[in-house]
């Protein structure tokens, strides 16, 4: 039985008292110094229990392996009522479950818009009163294999991207992106918002469905990989991905829907974020492939409803661990300022969950000013995320980091140990219902979402196998 350290030159990783590391420097022994700090306060006992769980290593390997091996493909665009269990009067929303009483301005605005869109209220005041009386049933998108940006409200008449995982067989959905400005996902519900949504259901959705029937499945894994190399991080910058999507679909749109081709292509082309929703469904189907691995400490969902920030963890089933959603720090449109901002909202953090967005900032130097920083901040943001993730994505690479894979698979134990919270890029919604987007920036999740998840993992570790 040999020990490799006994042969060859010693190279040492040191963590702790600097005096011991300096002693190695005096001996000219090569060493790597760990910049250690104590874990998040009060987590050491839970950490020890979770780290001692014999299932953890293999479970996390399985979980992150499934996440990065997923092969998301855009297979269709279909009405929500066909693919989701969504009776009249039931609305899905972003983030962990929430009731009307606790809902923020933009969430309420989007729900009012949903009532009007579905013909369940005569006007905004009527809609608000009915919602307050509990006449609509609300549920989290994530409970229905679905994600939605910002308020993320989904009604039965909306059309959805349908994304299939060719590797593991899962399916996920996301609504179609309405564009910027006054839109339902930012809580606007005026006549132009509803008019656009109706056009999307009557013209855009069917045209895209016919297009995809002609083109066959579109490989979103490949498209995402290419977009990263073209300067997108796939959360706040989707310009390259949207352009690639248009290039792929344009000929088929012309053939599939000749009567509407120009308006459909003009609409997609006029919205740099059109790809975001397809990308989110791709991230959702990938993350869902990693769910329910007993003992795994990997995050499979991060989502906000405008009031709470919630995470779900592979080894803990469908439980949510929440903390208060923070207000993003960023740049504001026009005369808007931080006082106009709503707390963090939307399921688009599924991109960070899958190793994109804030985690891939180093790939998108063009947006760093937009989110308030310089290029070195973007590099540092991505680099620091390697500290809290389990793997580097084999397909999603960052040219500026020598084609290193993006950091992927947030490990709750590493978040607690390092105190580093996931870096999230996000749009900022106005806090008053109906305002729309007021800015964009960076936001930190609440630490408590991760520490409560850690406590639950510790309890699950003590119960041993079969805790999911």
């Amino acid at each position: 039985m040999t020990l490799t350290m006994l042969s060859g030159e010693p190279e040492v990783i040191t963590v702790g008292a600097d005096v011991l590391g300096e002693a190695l420097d005096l001996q000219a022994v090569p060493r790597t110094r760990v910049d250690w700090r104590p874990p998040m306060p009060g987590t050491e006992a839970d950490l020890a229990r979770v780290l001692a769980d014999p299932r953890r290593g293999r479970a996390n390997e399985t979980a992150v392996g499934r996440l990065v091996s997923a092969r998301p493909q855009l297979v269709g665009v279909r009405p929500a009522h066909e693919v989701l269990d969504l009776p009249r009067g039931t609305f899905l929303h972003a983030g962990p479950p929430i009731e009307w009483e606790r809902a923020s301005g933009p969430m309420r605005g989007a729900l009012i818009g949903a009532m009007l869109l579905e013909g369940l209220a005569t006007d905004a005041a009527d809609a608000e009163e009915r919602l307050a009386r509990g006449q609509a049933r609300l549920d989290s998108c994530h409970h229905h294999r679905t994600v939605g940006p910002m308020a993320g409200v989904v009604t039965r008449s909306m059309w959805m991207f349908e994304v299939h995982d060719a590797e593991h067989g899962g399916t996920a959905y996301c609504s179609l992106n309405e564009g910027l400005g006054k839109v339902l996902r930012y809580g606007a519900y005026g006549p132009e918002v509803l008019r656009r949504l109706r056009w999307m259901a009557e013209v855009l959705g069917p045209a895209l469905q016919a297009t995809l029937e002609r083109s066959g499945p579109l490989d979103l894994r490949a498209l995402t990989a290419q977009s990263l190399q073209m300067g997108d991080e796939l959360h706040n910058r989707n310009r390259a991905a949207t352009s690639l999507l248009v290039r792929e679909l344009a000929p088929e749109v012309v053939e599939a829907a000749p009567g509407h081709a120009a308006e459909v292509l003009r609409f997609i082309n006029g919205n740099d974020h059109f790809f975001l929703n397809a990308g989110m469904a791709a991230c959702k189907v990938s993350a869902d492939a990693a769910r329910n691995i007993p003992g795994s400490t990997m995050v499979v969902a991060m989502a906000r409803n405008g009031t709470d920030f919630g995470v779900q963890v592979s080894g803990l089933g469908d439980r949510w661990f929440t903390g208060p959603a923070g207000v993003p720090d960023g740049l504001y449109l026009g005369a808007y300022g931080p006082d106009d901002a709503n707390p963090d909202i939307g399921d688009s953090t599924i991109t960070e969950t899958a190793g994109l967005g804030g985690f891939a900032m180093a790939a998108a130097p063009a947006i760093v000013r937009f989110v308030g920083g310089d290029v070195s901040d973007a590099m540092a943001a991505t680099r620091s995320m390697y500290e809290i993730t389990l793997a580097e994505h084999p397909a999603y690479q960052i040219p500026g980091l020598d084609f290193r894979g993006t950091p992927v698979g947030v490990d709750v134990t590493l978040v607690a140990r390092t105190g580093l919270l996931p870096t999230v890029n996000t749009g900022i919604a106005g806090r008053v219902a109906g305002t729309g987007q007021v800015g964009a920036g960076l936001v930190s999740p609440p630490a408590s979402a991760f520490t409560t998840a850690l406590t639950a993992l510790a309890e699950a570790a003590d119960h041993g196998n079969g805790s999911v």
Partner: protein
Amino acid sequence: MVRVRTGVYHDSVSLMRVSRTASALPGVEVAVVAMATELNLGIAAELGFDLPKAGPADLLIALRGGGADTLEAALAELDGLLAGLSATPAGGAAVEHPPHTVRAAARERAATLALVSVPGPYAFAEALDAVEAGLSVMIFSDNVPVEQEVLLKRRATELGVLVMGPDCGTAVIGGAGLGFANVLRPGPVGLVAASGTGAQQVACLLDHAGVGVSHVLGVGGRDLSADVGGLSTLRALEALDADPATELIVLISKPPAPEVARAVAETVAKLGTPVVTALLGPGQDDLTVATETALRALGAPVPAWPSWPAPGTAREHAGGLRGIYSGGTLCVEARLITGSGEFTDFGDDAYTVGRAHPMIDPTLRLEALAEVPPGEVVLLDVVLGHGADPDPAATLAPAIAGAAARGVTVVVALVGSEGDPQGLNAQAEALNAAGAAVFTSNAQAAGHAAEVVAGIAR
């Protein structure tokens, strides 16, 4: 003046140095610079500081002295010292983006082993990172729960690596000294030690005899207990047996639990390399005798162990014997040899919670030395090498001189090699000049002290 800095972390030894420097700044009477752990908050409160809410992740700065301006100036000076702690000398990516965990370090950079010295409650995570990355690990930290030790060692056995520790004070791997490590010549003897200072004593005596070591593998003081079952000892013995540089193995430990002793004996019997066993206990050979056995096994001559007799003439001794030790094994060995006296091991976990090891921080031992009444005999160890106090005689020699002036007889066991950075001879001469009898063999020091107490030697 009290300040709390959040999001700043420095290890306790570094902060102790800063505190010491800050206390010496002009106009500063009391300075506490420490992480705001419960213990440190307690210390500051006892010193009369009014403290805001703070936790172990916050840096506490508490200053008292003459005038607000003086303290502001001291604070500015202090900030400079703290900034100096964060600055890393070398260049490159490792410095710009230092990893925050052993896991991240092992993923990004080449390494053959990890050295963990974070506070005990946090050591498990870092050590497990190393083991899971396929690296052997030395855990210098103490106060690590035994169930965590067992888990780490089981995982290490599965993955073919070695866990040295917890509470492993010394190791030498391929010439690199880790923890408290003496500068030793390379040679044919491999050491497996459940005791840091025991290993240092044997290795330094071998060095005095001109014989070097291949590797010194610490296993931690609990390894041979029934709970741990000798997991690391067995693995270290087998690894040294397979190591071509090792011709003879010396195993150093307190007497193991009986079932563990059987397992060790079975393994030893299977090895191709001869093993000399030094088990510290009643009726067993002391470390010096075990070293001499090892030398004879190698066919090497046994020299006279260097010593420096006390200057001056013998005194009358009415009092008893006190052992003021920093090394646990040296303390046990001395107690066994003297057979009487009051011994304290200041390196024990009970004395190191929230404070540095006495080989780094002499405060508690100096206090104990100052309290020895006239007429008594004091036996103490001074351990040299990397990691230890860079000049222990600087604080000890005046204290010894003071004790000698009170009529206290001081005997020192000086564990060090000629190559150690402190300079063995310079340290011995300074301690000797202050009035102490100095021995490089702890057993001989203890024997001498016993003779002084019995009135048959000076």
